[in-house]
């Protein structure tokens, strides 16, 4: 493959800035031109990313379409991109969601349109780069590059407490990722000592022998960075603030893609790089995931604000993803990967829907609504479908993901699986209860009587999401088949140490037995 298609896709959004920056945004038509160009660029990026899909070979477990150039040679830093069965879907999810968010902000963002679209496109490049980078240094650069545009999106175009939320988001993420940087250097240092070869190449760093204490320490630092991003239970407090204050587009990107960075980080970096550390922390992480599932659901139940409710549901859903990753069975991991995509679609769609109604009424409080199903039938129907997908109703995408995870978990850890399954029930409770209070019954609030239903633009960006919801729900194999090889490879990478450990135990046991028999023979 000579054509650097991954580079094209990654930097296409950035290239778009050249067209956007010179356009004046004083007039309404200027703003529309900016929106239009941004939309076209993101569509073009999506089209280009479909070519990645076309070029992807599902039978290969390793990385594909790899591009490798020396970047900072004296430190062994390369510009190395590549994708496997996981990142393929996350890349497609990113390029798929971005144009939808641009469409959704057509009216909602009216101030500083140019700056907004620029931030969004820079963010897209950073996200795509993060998913494709195979060099730890490059990965870190993209990872940090996401911070500033997201900080601006929340802080400039957000709600009332936007600055508080933006700074909280920034600081939480920065603490984790800076410690990760120290550990990246530490890992490279150990690899250098071991092999005499200085490199930041992920593939070469896999399987670096590290003293056990350091491995645990390094895993902890990586896990902290990613757990904050996921977010896992005790580190989730930035998420509701960020979600509630962010504009709709920000929330969609945050929920749809940025949170996946955390689970992706576990899958790609933390777990395979430090299998022993991962093994050491596995019980804790499973525990925190289960707590996250139930806690997120319970807290979501009592939220008066629809957006906050959806935000807390994310904590619950991402708990499933982490649980799925950590049961280390094929079903569990594939379910987890699928759940990442599902969550991107369903929760992204929910945030879009909340944004639509917020644009009309400028409130997100559940008690302000009630019985609006007969006033906005199209909106209500779509909302109900997305809700069902979010709670894992059969024939929708959510069902497949959660089912696979629970299936995988049940094989390994029955207690965790049972507890996590209650999360499904709780999920149905809080979502359906919210739907009931918002859409059914009598219209109590006269302000809602003249609510406008969705217009064509809004339907246009919801339809692709609805199609995907049913596509994954009815024919998941289309998606799963691409990731079998990568997932198996991942499991073998992470489990390798455990096999060794057991073999050590077996060896020690046999030695002891031999010694015992020898001493017996002496007697």
């Amino acid at each position, binding site marked *: 493959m000579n054509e650097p298609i991954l580079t094209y896709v990654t930097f296409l959004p950035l290239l778009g800035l050249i067209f956007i920056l010179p356009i004046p945004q004083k007039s309404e038509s200027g703003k529309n031109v900016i929106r239009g160009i941004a939309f076209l660029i993101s569509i073009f990026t999506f089209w280009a990313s479909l070519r990645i899909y076309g070029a992807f070979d599902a039978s290969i477990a390793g990385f594909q379409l790899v591009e490798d150039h020396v970047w900072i040679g004296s430190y062994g830093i390369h510009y190395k991109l590549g994708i496997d069965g996981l990142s393929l879907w996350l890349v497609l999810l990113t390029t798929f969601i971005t144009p939808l968010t641009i469409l959704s902000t057509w009216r909602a963002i009216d101030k500083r349109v140019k700056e907004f679209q620029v931030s969004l496109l820079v963010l897209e490049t950073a996200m795509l780069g993060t998913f494709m980078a195979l060099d730890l240094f490059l990965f870190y650069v993209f990872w940090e590059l996401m911070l500033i545009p997201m900080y601006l999106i929340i802080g400039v175009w957000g709600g009332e407490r936007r600055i508080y939320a933006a700074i909280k988001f920034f*600081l939480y993420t920065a603490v984790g990722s800076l410690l990760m940087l120290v550990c990246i250097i530490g890992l490279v240092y150990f690899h250098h000592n071991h092999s005499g070869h200085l490199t930041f190449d992920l593939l070469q760093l896999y399987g670096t022998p590290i003293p056990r204490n350091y491995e645990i320490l390094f895993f902890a630092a990586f896990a902290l960075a990613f757990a904050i991003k996921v977010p896992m239970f005790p580190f989730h407090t930035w998420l509701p603030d960020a979600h509630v204050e962010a504009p709709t587009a920000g929330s969609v990107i945050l929920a749809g893609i940025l949170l996946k960075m955390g689970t992706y980080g576990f899958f790609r970096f933390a777990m395979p790089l430090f299998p022993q550390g991962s093994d050491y922390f596995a019980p804790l992480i499973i525990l925190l995931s289960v707590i996250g599932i139930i806690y997120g659901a319970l807290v979501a139940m009592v939220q008066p604000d629809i957006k906050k409710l959806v935000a807390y549901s994310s904590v619950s859903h991402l708990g499933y993803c982490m649980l799925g990753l950590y049961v280390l069975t094929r079903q569990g991991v594939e379910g987890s990967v699928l759940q990442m995509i599902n969550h991107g679609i369903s929760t992204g769609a929910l945030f879009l829907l909340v944004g639509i109604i917020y644009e009309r009424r400028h409130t997100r409080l559940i008690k302000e609504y009630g019985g609006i199903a007969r006033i906005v039938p199209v909106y209500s129907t779509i909302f109900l479908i997305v809700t069902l997908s979010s709670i894992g109703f059969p024939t929708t995408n959510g069902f497949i993901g959660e089912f696979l995870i629970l299936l995988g978990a049940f094989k390994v850890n029955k207690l965790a699986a049972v507890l996590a399954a209650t999360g499904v029930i709780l999920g149905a409770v809080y979502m359906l209860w919210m739907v009931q209070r918002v859409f059914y019954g009598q219209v109590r609030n006269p302000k809602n009587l003249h609510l406008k239903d969705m217009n064509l633009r809004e339907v246009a960006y919801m339809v692709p999401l609805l199609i995907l919801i049913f596509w994954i729900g009815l024919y998941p194999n289309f998606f799963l088949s691409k990731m079998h090889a990568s997932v198996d490879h991942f499991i073998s990478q992470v489990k390798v140490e455990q096999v060794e450990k057991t073999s050590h135990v077996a060896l020690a046991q046999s030695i002891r037995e031999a010694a015992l028999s020898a001493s017996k023979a002496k007697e």
Partner: protein
Amino acid sequence: MNEINLSFDFYHLWEVCGGQLILIVAGLLLMIIDMLLLDKDAETRGKYIGWLTVFIFVATLGHMVYRQWDIHDIVFMGVFSADKFSVFISIVMVFSGFLAALMSMGYLRNNALMKGEYYILLIYAVAGAIGLVQSVDLLMMFITLEVMSLAVYALAAFIKESPFSQEGALKYFLLGSFGSAFFLFGVALIYGLTGSVNITSIALAISGGLYQSLPLLVGFAMILVGFFFKMAMVPFHMWTPDVYEGAPSVVTGFMATAVKAAAFGVCIKVLYVSFGPILANSGQPDFASTVSLSALAPYWKPVVWWLALLSMFFGNLIAVSQTNIKRMLAYSSIAHAGYMSLGILAANGDGRMGVLFYLFAYTLMNIGAFGVVYIIDGKERTAQNLEDYRGLGYKYPALGFLMGLFLVAMAGLPPTAGFVAKFYVFYAAIKEGYFLLAALGILTSVIGAYYYLRVIYMMYMKEEIKEVVRGPVAAPTVIALVITALGVLYLGILPEKLANIANVAQQGLSVIF
């Protein structure tokens, strides 16, 4: 090797310290030209002298890059050396002077401060700084240190009407003299013990076991105190905020970069050459194998460890509570000194390379930031509070973007030079096993990110409350800002070229022997 060549040879003098000579002679000429131009009005005079200064710095830069860089093994009369290490640092300082001169034209005009002395002092400050890093003789170090310092004291006091400028300069002068006295006393002790002020002779003299004697350690510590003072490391930083706040903004940018670069350069030189190679192979000091093994390392390493941590921690922490942007940047420069000292602590080639790279990157972003500060200020002290930056990102998009870029670079986020620089020094420290310090240090940079970002949110997320009118922007300042901004981005994306040069430069340190 250590033979002192007492014959006076002008050609050698030119070879070794051509950069200094150009500056000194040009400074003298500029004084005359300034007098010849007295009948012209201040504006024209400023233009002439300013551009002449810029031209002088460019000429010096050219001489250093194309001539001095290649001659690296001559020690002139045992006083100055022209090794790649010194030349690299000199280039950083001349570059800093060049940017400062470009910005000064606009600054002096906006503040109606135009006087020829300003540029002459700037030139002599750089000449002194070059002399300082080129010295291989402790006494010459003291002299050049004073040349540099006196010029900078006068520059800091340049706004005669401003009590802040006067107060800061006086504080700087008194404390600076104190620091210099420490240095001089240390030199006296060392001279008494070793009978030499030449840093290589000292290295040989103390190799015999003298390094364990208490008076030598005291002298050594006193010399270091003199350097730490100029580097603005905690707890020798007390002067920094007042001086940085009171001094003319452009001078602050210059001080924070050139003076710091000089102090770091000479500190590294003394640490590694004079007090480094204690172990010797068959009577010959072996530089390469002894750098990190030197017997004095157990004495100074813990000290630098703590100073680095304290500087990073207090610099960043106190910066959070500042409301004046120049004061905030002053504390941030203390923190940056802490980061750079990680490279000294690592005491390996990577560390020295990291310091050199960091100094260059820091010069770009810091002078750039002060350039924006002075433009927004209009006239000194009219809009220096953080509150004055509200909404400026929309009012002046270009300035807002530049300020944002420089601050992001200082916060150490990719893809800027600040990130790569931090990466290099932290890499060097971790390579030597300083995990804890690296982890703590990097956490302090989260605090750093907080206050850098606060300026960004003032600029982009708050509405303007007090009307702030920026001063007129002069063309030379635009040139300087474009150079710094492009440099910050270029070094952030393609750092390797400069890193390789810096690496060659740090290896040049061994040539002094």
